[in-house]
């Protein structure tokens, strides 16, 4: 296993285990429709050796009483023991819950999905989007990978047909799910005194703190989450936000 000391010593020499620059992502690949037979939308994202898949399943449900004309989403990340020797079977760990909630927040708060367009009949029937995300192989940076794969799966999603108020899952319509914005996440990690992006699993273990920042295309921040055991100063936070803004602009290329 690659030690924390080794990673920190490399950083003082301005390099990383795989020779990348501090602000350099590994190769990103996005594939759509990986479960087209089963899911209403699906995608696979690879960031280096990290691979995640996601699927969107749609159901009809009753709206919340305070929002009678709005549908909703539910994001769920399950850290499969298939994908890493560090994950165990059982109820969702706190890491899985945090990933789910941060991914959910980015999409929800950016209003990338117009929940009002998910309304079928006010007060009675709305669309619920279940976005389930699973890592296949875990090698760091699940925050950004989950964000990318969730957006890709929603972009791929089409509404199933409604027949007599019930969903016919075997008949898909041509109507795409209305995703109007792309709230992209970049998580900045502090290792030693340096900020870097897209860490490997070993680099994550060596990190002191992290800050996830979600940007929409108009430059607005729509979700953030600090993690790790060490504090960040005001200056450091703004530096991380600045780096995240630059990187999310680059990530946007993968969606053109």
């Amino acid at each position, binding site marked *: 296993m690659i030690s924390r000391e080794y990673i920190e010593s490399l950083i003082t020499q301005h390099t990383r285990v795989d020779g990348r620059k501090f602000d350099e992502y590994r190769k990103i690949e996005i594939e759509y429709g*990986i*479960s*087209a*037979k*089963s*899911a209403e939308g*699906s995608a696979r994202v690879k960031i280096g*050796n990290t691979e995640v*898949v*996601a*699927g*969107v*399943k749609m*159901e009809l449900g009753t709206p919340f009483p305070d929002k009678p004309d709005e549908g909703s989403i539910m994001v*769920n990340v*399950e850290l*499969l*023991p*298939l*994908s*890493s*020797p560090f994950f165990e*079977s059982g*109820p969702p760990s706190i890491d899985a819950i945090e990933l789910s909630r941060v991914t959910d927040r980015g999409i929800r708060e950016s209003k990338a999905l117009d929940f009002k367009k998910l309304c079928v009949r006010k007060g009675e029937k709305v669309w619920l989007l*279940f976005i*389930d995300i*699973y890592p*296949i*192989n*875990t*090698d760091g940076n699940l925050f950004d990978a989950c964000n990318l794969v969730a957006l890709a799966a929603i972009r791929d999603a089409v509404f199933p047909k409604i027949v007599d108020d019930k*969903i016919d*899952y*075997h008949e898909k319509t041509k109507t795409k799910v209305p995703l109007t914005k792309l709230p992209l996440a970049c998580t900045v990690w502090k290792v030693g005194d340096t900020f870097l992006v897209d860490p490997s699993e070993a680099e994550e273990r060596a990190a002191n703190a992290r800050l996830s920042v979600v940007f929409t295309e108009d430059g607005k921040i729509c979700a953030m989450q600090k993690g790790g055991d060490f504090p960040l100063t005001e200056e450091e936070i703004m530096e991380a936000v600045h780096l995240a803004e630059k990187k999310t602009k680059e990530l946007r290329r993968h969606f053109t």
Partner: protein
Amino acid sequence: MKYSKRNDGRKFDECRPMKAEVGVVKNAIGSAKFQIGKTVAVAAVYGPKDLFPKFLQKPNTARLRCNYNMMAFSGSGERVRPGTNRRSKEISMVVEKAFEPVLDLSEFPKAVVDVYIELIQTDAGTRCAGICAASLALADAGFDMKDLVCAVSCGLVGDQVVVDLDKSEEDFEGGAVDIPIAVLPRTGEITLLQLDGEISKEDLHKAIQQGKAACQKIYAVQQAALRAKYGQEAKQ
């Protein structure tokens, strides 16, 4: 009811197109993906590692622990609720038993070897695809095995004996019988057999014979996948 032509134009004893790939999960010590038609299974092996609680340990060998799971979005209808259920637990158990006769873990007493099987997309035959993937993953991990394990579903659609039923055939309005079998390709022995539906003795016999023949084709696909990763080594 008569079933005279398959929905996808296959012959009655023909499997759907298959694809296998070994080494798809880098973190695992062995892994594989197996696709048959639109059913896609991924399997990964971790271990051997210490097994707790201690009373589960076997004094002379390691325990094989399989874990079958359908991803929440992989069902044909509504979302599958995450977590284990009675179905997935039973399948995990019969998959373990399917490997028991071929896998030699006596080198690792008291340990456990975990096999995780995940279904990404399903169109019937998921436990069989899972076994085909797990078999490759265990071979990839380098454990001593007397043979690979090949699995396919066979059975009856309407009045017709077929192999490798897809979902539309399982749901055939004139009735269908689904018989998943796992076969050791070198000896022809059967290590998993389940059946639900109603079938005559004669048709059962015919279905098993066709299933066994289909498993030889699966075996060839599995061998090719292992060769693709290990070159000439796998030929012996």
